[in-house]
């Protein structure tokens, strides 16, 4: 128990630092990119004076460190700011000089309304990834050098060679548009999650399959496995109780790292499938210079990454107590 508390305190402190660094980096970088959000909001024909006045009212002309301090103070009070572009009514205020600031949507509400869709997509993608990867990866590891191993290698090679944007378009074209089997453009129910999830799963599976194969094969060569049969243990006990348990630790760590890839994959896939999650929100925010939304999503992403990795470390320590030391 003492280990867990110490571990949690240390990792949470590290995680907080990571989130702060990421949030500041994003905060500074989006402000250095070309394109003034005040101009984007008001439209190209708005006068420079109006743009400047609006930018000052929005605090965009203050030093970055001042803006960041103000932003952090807001976050501490649970306020992630309001979107520059999105309005509560669902529209965007680009090119609109009358926009009432109070009518703009809060970043919290935008994230809150889109996150459940992304979690559903990510959850299903992960499930498909594991359903595909675990049997193929284990079989490949147990039968190293045989057809199961070769199949795992070839399948991984095919999957890793499919660009996600291309695969997404082809899937939507064939499965949805041509065959009419599963709908996928937009969202009107759970079925709309299936094809986007398959695209993400295909992107993530190769790494899991190969890592699992290698990890299982390596573990099988360990002395404690070779002598297990001599100790009278049955094959099932050896496989499930020893081989897979020891092979699971590297896979868990890999899962922690893959959360980043999952979040990245969601951006492209949601945009192509017009899936109303965090990814689509982020792509629209980037093209519209919607700084508060970009920052909010960046903080959320880094926080998810940190929390998942802490949970992964805890789980790994649970599986292999040697890691506690």
């Amino acid at each position, binding site marked *: 128990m003492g280990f867990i508390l110490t571990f949690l305190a240390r990792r949470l402190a590290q995680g907080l630092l990571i989130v702060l660094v990421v949030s500041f980096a994003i905060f500074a970088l989006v402000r250095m990119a*070309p*394109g003034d959000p005040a101009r984007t909001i008001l439209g190209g024909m708005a006068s420079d004076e109006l743009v400047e006045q609006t930018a000052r009212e929005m605090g965009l002309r203050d030093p970055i460190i001042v803006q960041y301090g103000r932003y952090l103070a807001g976050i501490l009070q649970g306020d992630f700011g309001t979107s520059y572009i999105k309005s509560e009514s669902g529209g965007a205020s680009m090119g609109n000089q009358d926009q009432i600031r109070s009518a703009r949507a809060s970043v919290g509400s935008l994230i809150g309304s889109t996150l459940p869709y992304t979690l559903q997509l990510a959850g299903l993608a992960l499930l498909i990834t594991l359903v595909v990867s675990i049997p193929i990866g284990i079989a490949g590891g147990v*039968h190293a050098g045989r057809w199961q191993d070769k199949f795992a290698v070839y399948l991984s090679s095919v999957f890793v060679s499919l660009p996600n944007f291309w695969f997404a378009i082809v899937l939507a074209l064939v499965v949805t*548009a041509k065959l009419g089997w599963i709908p996928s453009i937009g969202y009107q*129910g759970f*079925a709309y999650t299936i094809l986007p999830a398959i695209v993400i799963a295909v992107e993530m599976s190769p790494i899991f399959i190969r890592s699992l194969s290698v990890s299982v094969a390596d573990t099988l060569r360990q002395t404690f496995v070779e002598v297990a049969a001599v100790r009278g243990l049955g094959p099932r006990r050896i496989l499930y109780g020893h081989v897979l348990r020891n092979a699971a630790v590297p896979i868990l760590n890999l899962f922690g790292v893959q959360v980043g890839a999952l979040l990245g994959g969601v951006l492209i896939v949601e945009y192509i499938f017009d899936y109303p999650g965090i990814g689509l929100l982020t*792509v629209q925010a980037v093209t519209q210079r919607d700084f508060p939304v970009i920052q909010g999503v960046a903080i959320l992403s880094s926080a998810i990454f940190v929390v998942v990795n802490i949970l992964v470390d805890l789980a790994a320590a649970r599986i292999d107590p040697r890691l506690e030391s």
Partner: protein
Amino acid sequence: MSISSIVAPSRRSFLKTSAVGAAALTLPAPFIKRAYGQSRNTMVFGSGEPLTGNWDPTSHTVLSQINLEGYVMGQLFRTPMKPEDPTEIVWELATGQKIVDLYTIEYSLRDGVTFHDGKKFGAEDVKATFEYASSPGRPAAWYPGECEVEIVDDLTVRVHTKKGNYPAAAFYFLAGFLPIMSAKDIADPATLQGRPNGTGPFKFAEQRGNTTVLKAFDGYMHGKPLLEEVHFSYIGDATTRVLALLSGEIDVTERLEPEQYDSLSGESKVTLSRTVSTENKYLHFRCDKPPFDNPKLRLAACHAIDRDQILGVMGAAGEASNNYMSPVKFGYTDLPNYPTYDPAKCQELLAEAGFPNGQGLPEMEFFTSMGFYPKTKEYGEVIAAMLQEQGFPIKFTVMETAAWGARLYQQAGQPSYGDMVDCGWSTGSPEPDLVLRSMFYSKAGPKGGLINGVQDPEIDAALNAEQAEPDPDKRLALVAQAAEAVAAKAPSLSLFTSVLLHGYRTGLEGLVFYPNGPIDASKASFKA
């Protein structure tokens, strides 16, 4: 038994596992709803651009919102703007117009029309709309200037333009583009901005995320539409919109890429529409500074460009034109002095400008956007290559839309960005001044033309002459003369006229596509 045997299944266990797997695959079936789930009385439109979230029609110049207003808002009249008759007028809230004198135009209004909120339409609404929308502070500066409206009776108004010092004839076509708001809404800005309220065939029902839901208006002046609902959905990516159309998620899509238009031509599920638009695409020269403050250099550049090659790149999305406005505009004619591809003439003008073979010219930046208009990068590269071939030291820059938009317009007190910029100009009326005066009049922007910054007394004189002529027949010739005056100085080169490419579900009948984007769906229905 070995470890291998656990994961090397026997034939029996393999068959058993396969059967269980197949059964598992059917588990999500109850959750899977087939596409084409929409009721056949609902038309879903896939918009390539988001709405603004502010429903005041005078607060924006956003094309998608103008398209949506086409369903909701009524106008005094509509102008279908067909190339064979750009001046056709279809009366809507008005039943006629009459130019009374230089500064007065009279409108007779239709009786028995109501707004979506139940308010009866009348002269007070036209007065409130014109006076509010023409006030100097309104961002969507569609009106030529301030005006005052006199209510003659409940169904007659006179628009006076003396206050703004422009001829009342300016409204002759322009009024067919201006949405009429309720006087009650205009008196309450929060209500005006909070929801759209018009006299059009569909009324606003609700906003669902990126989708605006409109319902058929029972009290529509020409009878309730056949469609029960129109869903206006923002889908940013062009490929996704096509996939949505093919899969039945949407019924109409706009802004098809030329390749998509070609590939969809063989699809039985999709019907295509090609509409010559009100938009011309321009290569604007920055006339407010050297080197393009020199008209000879501008003309030299124009003669270096083979517009046929650009049209080849545009495919179905481009239409040849030889004027600064679209063929669907009042006063369009192929200008006799419009610059054509002529390398010898280009070299002659370069020499006259003091830059033989381009020697001595500074590096010139030509910038364009990517992702907003079709093919800008592709034909921009063609233009840059053609100019370089004649000796222009061109630096070609492609920008993401927001960065390009921030650099596009002339601003007071600072030099314009770059030397040449690519941009389109789309307006919703046959009125030529919406293009000619915005682009080429010395008082249009802080430094002259809104984008090129041109200030030329001869162009101004020609534009003032055509604007002052109240007789449409006489004005026709004056508009052509004004366009010729512009061509002689070439502050910009109109490259081609854009074509609106729509795709819609086969079986959806009765849609009318306007050349500026809106769609009339008041008579549309799905064939059984």
